[in-house]
């Protein structure tokens, strides 16, 4: 389409990135991945489950998508850095979605630990995708530290509250030196479209798809929403006006 998202020299087939967390099983995850049209899905690293039937890696392989391992559940830079190195060992990718959270209740990023981890992982040769607060200054610091993208939240993980501070997201995108991927808080398709209209280069969605009543249908909705929002952004929306402005000219009207 000539309007692709490229990260670390890799051109992705879609600006939608899908998280697999929350899916009811591998079959549901596979249906959602296929319906979403995504080329990139996140996975976590966890202890071997002796009762697991199949692996999410088989699903990823069958769908022909790339892996973005995350550091979900890490509370410190040191823990996240080791998790990223483990993921590189396990999956042979230097890409990592860096999550360093501050507490379990909000799952909000810990900015101090996050920046420290990002700096170290960039130095270690990782392509870092940091999940961050919707803070324009922190986003700039992460980009300056060498992160490949920045991923501000719309609202806390899993809340489906959408983009609580669109102004901040716009501030981040207008000054961005790297692609901005809206991550977390998306509830439905219009939220994803709004993210793109605000100038985001992509959207990462997990719960909104995997926990929807029909995940595959929501994945398809997100696919179109991201594309529609992107097209609208590129098209250039009209300015907001206080008063009406007729689209039909008054000139030439009959005297009746």
């Amino acid at each position, binding site marked *: 389409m000539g309007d692709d998202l490229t990260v670390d020299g890799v051109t992705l087939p879609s600006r939608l990135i899908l998280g697999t967390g929350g899916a009811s099983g591998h079959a549901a995850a596979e249906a959602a991945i296929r319906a979403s049209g995504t080329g990139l899905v996140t996975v*976590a*690293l966890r202890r*071997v489950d002796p009762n697991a039937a199949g692996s999410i890696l088989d699903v990823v392989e069958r769908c022909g998508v790339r892996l973005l391992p*995350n550091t979900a559940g890490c509370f410190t830079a040191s823990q996240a850095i080791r998790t990223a*190195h*483990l993921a590189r060992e396990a999956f042979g990718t230097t890409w990592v979605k860096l999550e360093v959270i501050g507490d379990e209740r909000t799952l909000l990023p810990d900015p101090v630990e996050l920046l420290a981890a990002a700096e170290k992982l960039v130095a270690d040769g990782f392509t870092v995708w940091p999940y961050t607060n919707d803070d324009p200054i922190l986003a700039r610091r992460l980009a300056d530290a060498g992160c490949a993208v920045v991923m501000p939240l719309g609202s806390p993980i899993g809340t489906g509250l959408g983009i609580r501070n669109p102004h901040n997201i716009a501030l981040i995108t207008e000054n961005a030196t790297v692609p901005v991927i809206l991550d977390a808080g998306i509830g439905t398709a219009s939220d994803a479209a709004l993210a793109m209209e605000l100038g985001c280069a992509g959207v*990462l969605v997990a719960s909104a798809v*995997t926990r929807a009543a029909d995940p595959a249908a929501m994945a398809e909705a997100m696919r179109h929403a991201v594309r529609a929002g992107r097209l609208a952004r590129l098209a250039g929306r009209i300015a907001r006006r206080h008063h009406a402005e007729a689209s039909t000219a008054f000139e030439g009207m009959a005297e009746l």
Partner: protein
Amino acid sequence: MHVIVNGRAREIAPESTVADVVRQTSPEERGIAVALNGEVVPRADWATALREADRVEVLVASQGG
């Protein structure tokens, strides 16, 4: 010899290696990462012999956002 594998005590043969524990823990060797006492063990070092009370984490991909 006693070690802790994924948070559970386990008795293993003396002179067991990281690779031995991986084989006993996971049905496949693909997509696995190992930490020994909190530190990453690259695949090239899986021949490392374990010691009494070592903590081994054997990790795989799971669904996650």
